[in-house]
Every structure is written in C-alpha cells, then in structure tokens.
C-alpha cells in the first residue's frame, strides 16, 4: 500500500510532512522513511518543531476551564487505571491482562511481565504516534484476558438492556463466578478499568453484536459511545491471521464503508480495539471485520470474518 521513498524524494517532502499537508499515503511514506533514516529523522523533527511554534502566534481564544477540568478528571482516571492494570499480577487476572493495556510503551515495558510484549509492540504500530500519519481513527489493540473480555461484554450488555448502575456491573461480574470466571480478580480489574467502562456503558452507548454464525467461530461486541464518538470492539476466538495479513474493521453506512483501522488478536484469540470516530447516530447500518493485507485496504477486499447489523443495536436508555 505504501511505497518506499528514496532518500532524495523524502528530503523533498519533509517540510510538507512537518506541516501535515500531504495526502495520507504520502504522509505515511515520509514518516516511514524518516523513522529509519538517520538524516531525515532529525531533519523532520526540526521542521516539526518550527511548525509547532506557529501555535504561539494564535490569538488568545476563549478558554473553557470547565471542559479542561472535565478532561483533566477523565485523563487522570485513565492514567490511574493504566497504572493499576500494570500493577495487577498476571496470576490474578489471567494470562494476557498483565501485558501492556495500550499495546505497550517503553515506560510500561519494565513494569510488566514480558509474556505478550512482542505482540503488544506489534499491535502498537497500528496506532498513531506523535505527528504520525493522518488517519481518520486512532486504533489501539489491547491485550485482554479472555475472562475479563467475556465478563466486560456480558456485564455491559446486561447494563445496556437493564439500565443498571456501574456498581451493579461489578456485582454482575461477581455473580458470574458460577460460569467459571474468577470473580474477585475481575472485580478488581473492572474497578481498575473505570475508563473502559465509561466507554462501554452509559446513556449514549450502543452495542452491536458481531458474529460469524458458526460455533467456535469468532464473535465480538462493538460499543459505540455517541457522546464521545468512542468505539470499542471486544473480540473473542479470533484466529491469528495469515502472515502479512490483519483484520480490518469497517463501519458501514448507506453511502460508504469506513475503515476504522486494522488489528491482530492476542495469542489467546482475544482483541480489544478502540477508535475515535464521529458518525451521525442514524447512519450506521452494519459493522464488519474482514481479513486484509497487514497495512489495511481502502475498501474491503478480503474474506468477511464477522459482522453485525444495526438491527442488533442496543441503545442504552
């Protein structure tokens, strides 16, 4: 999808890349070159730094301390949840949940067992980096234990259909012990994942079930938070894609199919995929996952893996 640029071509395009005025594929190509070129990397950084200075010439805008305070609260809750998840020993929450929840960072790597570090880092490459390629959505693939995944999906669905409180979700998770889930650990991880729950539950969250229609086949829930335009896909029993291939998520509207990004599952077949993407509330017709080249395709070309139609949308009250 992205062709390799020569050094000379890249040098020519660096100023444009720094300003982010290139078409997405060209931007991606320049960034890819700069990432590995000892000359272009630093040169791009200097140009970017200069471009960022332009922000300082903006006139004072009407500030919004209320919004900033709200973001501060959410941000710090996320950070604390992030740290809490990092501190959960692997033994208490299952094999995968101790790996980096956001696909791994250098900071997190030291604090966590290395079990899934490799795949976490691979998954990370799907996400944007500072000034990364312009893309409509910013996917991150999170490792997730099967148990936590199932419980979260189940709990959120119960919540959506019965309008329970978040506290009751935790109770529901506890009650599901009979099904073999490890309730105490789950409760801990659920509490630690407040920010995840915020995206999965609430008045403005729709849930879509994605299936392949066969036993043992992959399945998933997609939660769409209309208030934040946050999309969270919790997938399960997803086989590893063939080499050089990945799964691509599509939001299907009457007019078009919008790529929400690509992901690969964890070794245990689970995947958590998040994206932020604004979509008019009534325009979603279906959600689909197809198998595509690892870099993603402009339109679906590969085999359909799972899909859900909006007939199965559950809108919270």
């Amino acid at each position, binding site marked *: 999808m992205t062709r390799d640029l020569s050094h000379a071509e890249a040098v*020519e395009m660096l*100023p*444009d890349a*720094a*300003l*982010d*005025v*290139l*078409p997405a594929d060209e931007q991606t190509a320049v960034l890819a070159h700069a990432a590995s070129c000892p000359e272009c990397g630093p040169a791009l*950084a*200097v*140009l970017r*730094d*200069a*471009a*960022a*200075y*332009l*922000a*300082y*010439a*903006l*006139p*004072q*805008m009407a*500030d*919004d301390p209320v*919004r*900033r305070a709200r*973001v*501060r609260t*959410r*941000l*710090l809750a*996320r*950070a604390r949840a992030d*740290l809490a998840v*990092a501190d959960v020993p692997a033994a208490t929450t299952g094999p995968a949940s101790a790996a980096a929840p*956001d696909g791994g*960072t*250098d*900071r*997190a790597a030291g*604090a966590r067992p290395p079990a899934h570090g490799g795949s976490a880092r691979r998954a990370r490459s799907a996400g*944007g*980096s*500072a*000034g*990364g390629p*312009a893309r*409509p*959505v*910013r996917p991150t693939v999170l490792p997730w234990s099967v148990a936590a995944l199932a419980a979260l999906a189940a709990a959120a669905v119960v919540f959506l259909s019965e309008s329970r409180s978040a506290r009751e979700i935790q109770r529901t998770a506890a009650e599901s012990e009979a099904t073999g889930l490890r309730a105490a650990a789950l409760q801990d991880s659920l509490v630690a994942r407040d920010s995840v729950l915020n995206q999965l539950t609430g008045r403005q969250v729709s849930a879509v079930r994605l299936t392949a229609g066969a036993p043992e086949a992959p399945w998933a829930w997609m939660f769409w938070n209309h208030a*934040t*335009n946050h999309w969270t896909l919790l997938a399960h029993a997803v086989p590893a894609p063939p080499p050089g291939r990945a799964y691509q998520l599509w939001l299907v509207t009457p007019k078009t199919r*919008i790529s929400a990004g690509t992901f690969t599952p964890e070794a245990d077949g689970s995947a958590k995929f998040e994206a*932020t993407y*604004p*979509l*008019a509330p009534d325009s979603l017709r279906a959600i689909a996952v197809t198998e595509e080249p690892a870099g993603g395709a402009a339109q679906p070309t590969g085999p359909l893996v799972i899909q859900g139609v909006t007939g199965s949308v559950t809108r919270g009250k």
Partner: protein
Amino acid sequence: MNPPDSDAAYKMRMAAAPTRAEDRELVARLSAGDDAALAQLYDRWSRPVYALVVHLVRDGDDAEDVVEETFWQAWRQASRYEASRGEVGTWLLTIARSRALDRLRSRRRLREEPLTPVLPGGPESPAGLVDAGDDPARRVESAERRDLVAGALRTLPPEQRQVLELAYYGGLSQTEIAERTGQPLGTVKTRTRLAAQKLRDALALLRSGEGGGRGGAATVEEAGR
C-alpha cells in the same frame, strides 16, 4: 535591530529557560509512570493545547476528546520524547495538531463540511496563545515564543505566509489550499516547502541566542548562571 540580541530578549530567555527544564522534568517523570506529573503537565499545557485544538476543530466536544487523546498519547509515549529534538510544549502541540487534523479530516469526509479555515488576526495580535496564567516566568516564556514566531513569519513573502497559515491554522491539505487559492497544486507545493524551510531557518536564527541549542540540557545550565 535584531530582537533576540536585545537586552530585553536576553532577560526573557533567561527567565523562561527554567520552565522549559521543568517541563522536561515532568516528561521524565511521566515516562516513569508518575500520574502526578501528568496532572502538572496538564495544568501547564492544557490551556494552549485546548486553544489550538478548538481553533482547528471548532467544536467544544471534539476539542475535549482531542485534548484528552493528546495528553493520553503523551502519557503513553513519554519515553519517546527526546529533549534534543525540541521543547516539550512544541511536542505536545504537534501531537495535538495531528490528532485535531485527524478529527477535522474525518469529519470533513463524513459530513462534507465546507472548508472554512479561520486564521489568526496575525502574529501582531496583542494576546498570544500561551497566556500562561499567573506564573510570571511562564508569561515571559509565552511572550518570548510569540515574538519569535512573529519575527520568523515577518521574514516570509506574503504568498508563502499565506500557504503556511492555511496549512497550519486552517488544517487544509495542499490540494485544499490549491482549490481555495486558485493556485496550481505544483505552486502550492513549492510554496509550502519553501515556507516551512524558511520558518525553520528563521526560528533557528532567532533562537540561536538561547545558548546551548534547541531545548537541550545546556540551556538549563546556562540559564542557571
């Protein structure tokens, strides 16, 4: 006379340098997983970040999301920040603009929004983006940055300045700039390239008096003397 060589500019630089060092210290703590440092960094930078983002996305709800994602990305990628490559503030603003453009462009694609870039009143605007609140050192720093970029922009020919402003403040792509200005795409490409290079060179020149270079440790040490 050359502003950065003036006595006033020199004093401004010396006063501002410690706050840059504090920013770097905060990012170092971020990469060690210190959420209190995240709170501090947010308190220092959320205002200019929010202002830039809301300028670009022009919607409070979208701006909230983008600001959150900006600092979240900083939290997750703090260890990738390299002091030798620029200031913490420009790092954050670069992330913020990139995320804001993602949002803006996907929204334009989806809703076919008209391209209506809002440009600042010009670098001579009395109040800069980084008003920085009550901290005198930060206010000095913000004034310094505003003066630097104003000086750099003044060195650009008007047509280059225009493409730069449409690109940076308007969030337009080269193709969109060509459509909007009625100039051939090739001309727009040449102008953005020259403009970005000139801006870089002008800023480098204006900042060369900072002592020790681009936000590196030497700046802190010299400032301490």
